[in-house]
Structures are given as structure tokens and as C-alpha cells.
């Protein structure tokens, strides 16, 4: 009897599922709200308290709210990059948000799918490469402040070995390592940059371990492309120096921290929201640099000497004011082959798909 009942119930459930499945309608038009507040939303891949990537976006959101008090912003944190993101995006679109900022690369497919269903909602996807009428991408030329931080590191190192804790061998990270190395080499030709991959964005313990292995290998300055201050702490514990990432990390390692290439999303968010509201917004692939203020080098601490500070200021001015950019020839790869001819520059396309290391990097891009 009981078995039969179960059978009938499960059959019913299938029917309900199919029925509700077919009758589903897109209801974005309901989102024309009567609220005076303009609704925008953010989804983050990590927790906002990570002191890293998600935190930097949240700081941008806070900036937006301060600048535009009539904007209402919701966020959802710790959204995995699999099937969950599509549901979360849909939910946010359903809830009447006009603009949704998706702040991780892995949301790309989901953003494209949901954007098709909600043509009236604007989706802004960070670090991706797919666009649509209502989907734009945005990112920053983080390699520029990375280059500057390389200068700082190379001036500081005594052993001429700089450790680099890196997340995944993807173009964004490789680009950063290369820029950093070029910066270091520009002031200290003997410097080498040792790279260790962690295969994680967010794992305090693992990142710290990776930094320790670099310190053991002779590095006396540590930098990172990771979202936690773990490597900073490792450097402080072994009386080495450190360069952070994402945000000012001085509080985590006051005796080691020199500076950090940081994100500053706030102004871009304000501009975007204003443009969408005014109806002047157009889909684009935004890739701002030092000039636009979306990336920056955080203020250098007293551990950096005045000469270096002046040098960095000069280099920064060169990037902002002239056509010169970090990846201007001559640049050789690890085997010594010339990759960029004298006076030539890499195109954005080439930068975005970078898969080789410059001379001076010790490490391998995992095959």
C-alpha cells in the first residue's frame, strides 16, 4: 500500500514539474517599479569579508551608494560559478534590478543566458569577453600598477629573488606576473621572479604555505595574485617584505607590507549607473587603466625609501601621460626569443590571451 502511494506521489510530482516547467514565463516587465529608488545588484564569488576581490567590488558598491543616494543596491555573496549563478542572476533580474554587476569570470555563460531572457536589464560582467546588446564587460589594466609594484620590489630585494604566489595560470594572472617582472627588471636586471601556483583564488592556509615555500627558496619580497592576506602574513613572520593585491593590506602585515596594486571600481560603477539611467549607455568592453583611476598603486609605506617613491611616481606619470605602456618592446620570453620588437606594443587582443612568460620569470605555465 505504502509503495503504491509513493509511486503515485512521485508520478504526480513529475507532472507538476513538467506543468510548472512549461507555464514558466519571463516576467521582467513587472520590474518597472513604483519605488523611487533605482535598483542595482551585485553578485560576488567570495564572501564580502575576504579582504580581497569581492571586498574590492563591495567597496565600489559602497562608493556608488555614497555618490548616488537614490540608488538601492543588493548583493549576493559566495555564489559558485556553476549552475547556481544563473539562478541567482535570474532572481535578481526578477526582483526588478535595472543593472546587475556580475563580478567573476565564471558567471559568463550564465550572464549571457539570463541577459537574453531579460532584455530590459543591463548586465555588466567583470573580466569576461562575451557581450550582447545589454551585456557589457569591464576590467582594469591591473598590469600597470603591477609593473610599478615590480619596481618597488626590485628596489627592496637584497637576495634578488622575489616570490610570486599566483592563483591559476590564466591570462589575467600571467599578464600580471609579466608586468611585475618587467617592472622589476627595469630597475634591477639581476632580479628574478619565482612563481608558485596555488590553483585557488581563496584559501588562506594554502596561500600562506605557498608563500613560505618561496621564502624558503630565498625570496625576500613576496607578492601575490590571491584574494587573502595569507602571503602577507607569511612574509611578516619571516621578516621579509610583501606587496599585497586587491586592497590596501597594510593592517595584516604592518612590518612587511610595502604597497599593493589595488582596484578602485567605485568611479566606474557611478559612471555606468548614470549612463544607463540617462539612456546613453552602450554595450562595450571597458578596460580602464591608471589613467582612468580604476586601478592604482596603494600608498607606499615608510618601508619604501624616498628614492623609490620618486622613481615610481615618474614611471606612473610616464604610463598616464604618454603612449608608452608596460608591454612595449623589446620583450623576450623565457627562452630568450624576442616576442615584442623594439618600439612595438602588444595589442589588447594579445594581452587578453597571453600564455607565455617574459625573461626573468622562474616558473612554468602548467600544461
Amino acid at each position, binding site marked *: 500500500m505504502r509503495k503504491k502511494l509513493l509511486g503515485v506521489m512521485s508520478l504526480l510530482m513529475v507532472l507538476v514539474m513538467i506543468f510548472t516547467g512549461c507555464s514558466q514565463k519571463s516576467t521582467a516587465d513587472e520590474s518597472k517599479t513604483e519605488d523611487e529608488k533605482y535598483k542595482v545588484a551585485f553578485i560576488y564569488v567570495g564572501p564580502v569579508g575576504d579582504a580581497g576581490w569581492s571586498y574590492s567590488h563591495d567597496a565600489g558598491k559602497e562608493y556608488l551608494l555614497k555618490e548616488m543616494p537614490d540608488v538601492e543596491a543588493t548583493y549576493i555573496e559566495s555564489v559558485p560559478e556553476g549552475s547556481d549563478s544563473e539562478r541567482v542572476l535570474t532572481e535578481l533580474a526578477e526582483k526588478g534590478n535595472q543593472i546587475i554587476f556580475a563580478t567573476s*569570470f565564471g558567471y559568463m555563460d550564465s550572464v549571457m543566458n539570463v541577459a537574453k531572457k531579460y532584455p530590459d536589464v543591463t548586465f555588466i560582467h567583470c573580466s569576461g*569577453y562575451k557581450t550582447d546588446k545589454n551585456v557589457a564587460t569591464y576590467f582594469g589594466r591591473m598590469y600597470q600598477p603591477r609593473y610599478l609594484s615590480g619596481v618597488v620590489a626590485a628596489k627592496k630585494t637584497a637576495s634578488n629573488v622575489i616570490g610570486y604566489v599566483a592563483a591559476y595560470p590564466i*591570462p589575467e594572472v600571467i599578464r600580471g606576473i609579466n608586468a611585475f617582472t618587467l617592472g622589476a627588471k627595469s630597475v634591477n636586471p639581476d632580479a628574478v621572479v619565482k612563481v608558485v601556483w596555488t590553483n585557488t583564488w581563496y584559501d588562506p592556509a594554502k596561500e600562506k604555505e605557498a608563500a613560505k615555500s618561496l621564502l624558503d627558496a630565498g625570496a625576500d619580497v613576496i607578492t601575490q595574485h590571491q584574494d587573502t592576506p595569507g602571503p602577507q602574513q607569511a612574509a611578516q613572520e619571516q621578516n621579509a617584505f610583501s606587496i599585497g593585491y586587491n586592497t590596501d593590506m597594510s593592517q595584516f602585515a604592518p612590518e612587511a607590507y610595502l604597497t599593493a596594486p589595488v582596484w578602485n571600481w567605485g568611479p566606474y560603477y557611478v559612471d555606468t549607473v548614470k549612463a544607463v539611467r540617462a539612456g546613453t549607455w552602450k554595450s562595450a568592453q571597458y578596460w580602464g587603466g591608471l589613467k582612468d583611476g580604476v586601478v592604482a598603486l596603494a600608498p607606499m609605506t615608510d618601508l619604501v625609501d624616498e628614492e623609490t617613491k620618486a622613481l615610481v611616481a615618474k614611471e606612473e606619470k610616464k604610463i598616464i601621460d604618454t603612449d608608452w605602456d608596460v608591454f612595449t618592446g623589446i620583450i623576450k620570453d623565457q627562452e630568450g626569443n624576442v616576442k615584442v620588437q623594439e618600439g612595438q606594443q602588444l595589442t589588447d587582443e594579445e594581452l587578453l590571451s597571453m600564455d607565455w612568460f617574459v625573461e626573468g620569470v622562474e616558473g612554468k605555465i602548467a600544461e
Partner: protein
Amino acid sequence: MQKYLKVEKRNMNNQYGMFAIRIGGIFVALVLGAIFLIFSGHAPIDVYVTMIDGAFGSAYGVNETIVKTIPLLIAALGVSIAFRMKLWNIGAEGQIYAGGIMASGVALSFGDLPSLLLIPMMMIAAFLGGALWACVPGIARSFWGTNETITTLMMNYVGILWVDYLVFGPWKDPKGYNFPITAEFSPSAFLPTFGGTRVHIGIVIAILCSFVIYILLNKTVWGYEIRVAGENSDVAKYAGMNVTKNIILTLMVSGGIAGIAGMTEVSGVIHRLQSNFSPGYGYSAIIIAWLARLNPIAAIFVSFLFGGLIVGGYAVQTSGLPASVALMLQGLILFCVLGAEFFTGYRVSIDKRFFSKGEAKING
């Protein structure tokens, strides 16, 4: 205190009583959660309404819950088979990844084939992948007595890292700007969906699997052997069953089915292979299998509720609750429901004799 309570074993055969106890567990969880929410400055009723509404309150919510149910259910069915034989297959997560790899391999290599051919091929490949993943611990257990709890768990990491290797290396999308994902499958490798929703045919596969496995376990010769060996392997040997062979076979079928969960996920939802494509379905499956008491039919409902718990957890975030509180609520509900299981096996009651005639008490 202890003196005033009686704790006694009981044989509960009353299905309604069991059901009531579990519902009671959920209720306790909600009350505890409410207290916590009040202290953290949230209105509990609002949070619960948002949660239930998010998961079951709309056609969309139900659809999304079903999307979650699919991998959870299939993986739970997989582990149930092994658990029936008291083989602690904790490796469903790795088997999901192995299944995902194999299915993706087929999808990427034979993208030109029509759906009707390609999808069954992917499914078979996924089954073989999961089976292979579980077969390694199975052989180790049968021949050298290694503890399969540990080996299956270790195989999880191997599976997860294999996916990383493939998407960073050989299978990287050539047009993907070096990002760690494979190219999108050709549409013929997509599982068909219902209407405009994300609910895909995987739900039919999953429910079909439930019934097939129910019949397999309860009506067939092989299922009989698994049940006997699961109750007591000494009895199985005494009855002349080949326990060694059955350990490997059972683990392989268990892993193979979990592998299919990987296939439905890459083929039905993500449409490509990428790192960490399963957010721990294989681990949730273990809890589901237990809550369903290893009954494949009950697993359908438990998975659906579990899917709702996950979907609802994200929904409450939109009402301003931090993700950690949402996770805490999910954990609390699970804890209480699992805790309630105790009461299905034991009776706790107030010892009335202490309150009837209080004066006659001569305890040491």
C-alpha cells in the same frame, strides 16, 4: 536530570510516527533558527517566508529546485547502492567529476552526431567514468582490505584535479582567451529542457533511475545478495555468495550512477566542462541517502526538499541576510533532522514515577 528521563530502545514500525518525528526535527530547527535570527537582528518569519517562497513559492522557484534536485538525486541513488552493502562510498563527488569528464570527452569529440545518439553515448561514458573511479577503491578493498571510506574520499581530489588539468590544459577552449573552460558543447550534446526553463530531461532520468534501482535492490537476485552482504558479510559468505566480486561490482554501479549525475550537470546545465562544476553534490548526496534511509523512492522527495533548502538559502540573501547566516540555517535544519533520527530508534520519556508519589524515593 538524567534520572527523570527514560531512554529506551524501540522498534518503530509506524511509518506515520517516523514521519512525524522528522517533521518535528524541522520544526525544532526553525525555532532554534528563529532565536538566532532574532539575536542577529532579522525577522525570522520574513526570512522563512522568503526561503520557502524562493524555493517553492513560484513556478520559477520550483523549477530551480528541480534543477538542483537532479544531480542530488542521482548521486544519492549512487551512494545508496553502496551503503546498502555497508560500503562507505564517500567518493560520489569524485565520481561526479569523472562522469563529467567522460561525458565532456564524448561531447567534445563527437559533437556532430545527432542528439539521439550522442546523449546516450555521453551517459554510457559517464557511467563508465564513475564506475572506473569507484572501481579503484573497490579493488583495493576486496584484495587488500583497504578502508574504502578513505580511498573513495582521496579519489575525490584526484577527480577534481583531473578536471582542472583538462580545462587548463588539453581541453582548454582555443577561443576562450586561455580561460580554464572547455569550448561549449554542440547543441546536440545538450539535454533537452522543458519549455523555457532550465529544467532538463535529467529529472526524468533521475526518477527513472530511482525506480530501476528500487527494483534492482528489492526484486532481483543481485539486489538480494547486496542486501544480505550489507546486513552481515559473514552470512553472505556462509550462504556461498562471492562477497569479493560483489564489493567491486557494487562500488562500480554506485560510482557509475554518481557519474551520470556529472553527465546531467555538464550536459543539462553548464554545457561545458569547467573547474569545480559540482558544488559538493556528492557530499550532500550522502546526507540525502541517509535521510531517505537508503530507499530510492524516498530519495526523490528528500532530494527535492534538499534542493529547496539550497535554492531557498540563496533566496534569503536577497533579503539582506549574509551568506553565512543562510548557510547556518541550512546547517541547523540538517542537524535537527539528522538528530531527530535518534528518536526513531529510541524513546525518551519523562519518568512518571518521580512525579506521582514524590515522597517514596530511596535513591543512593
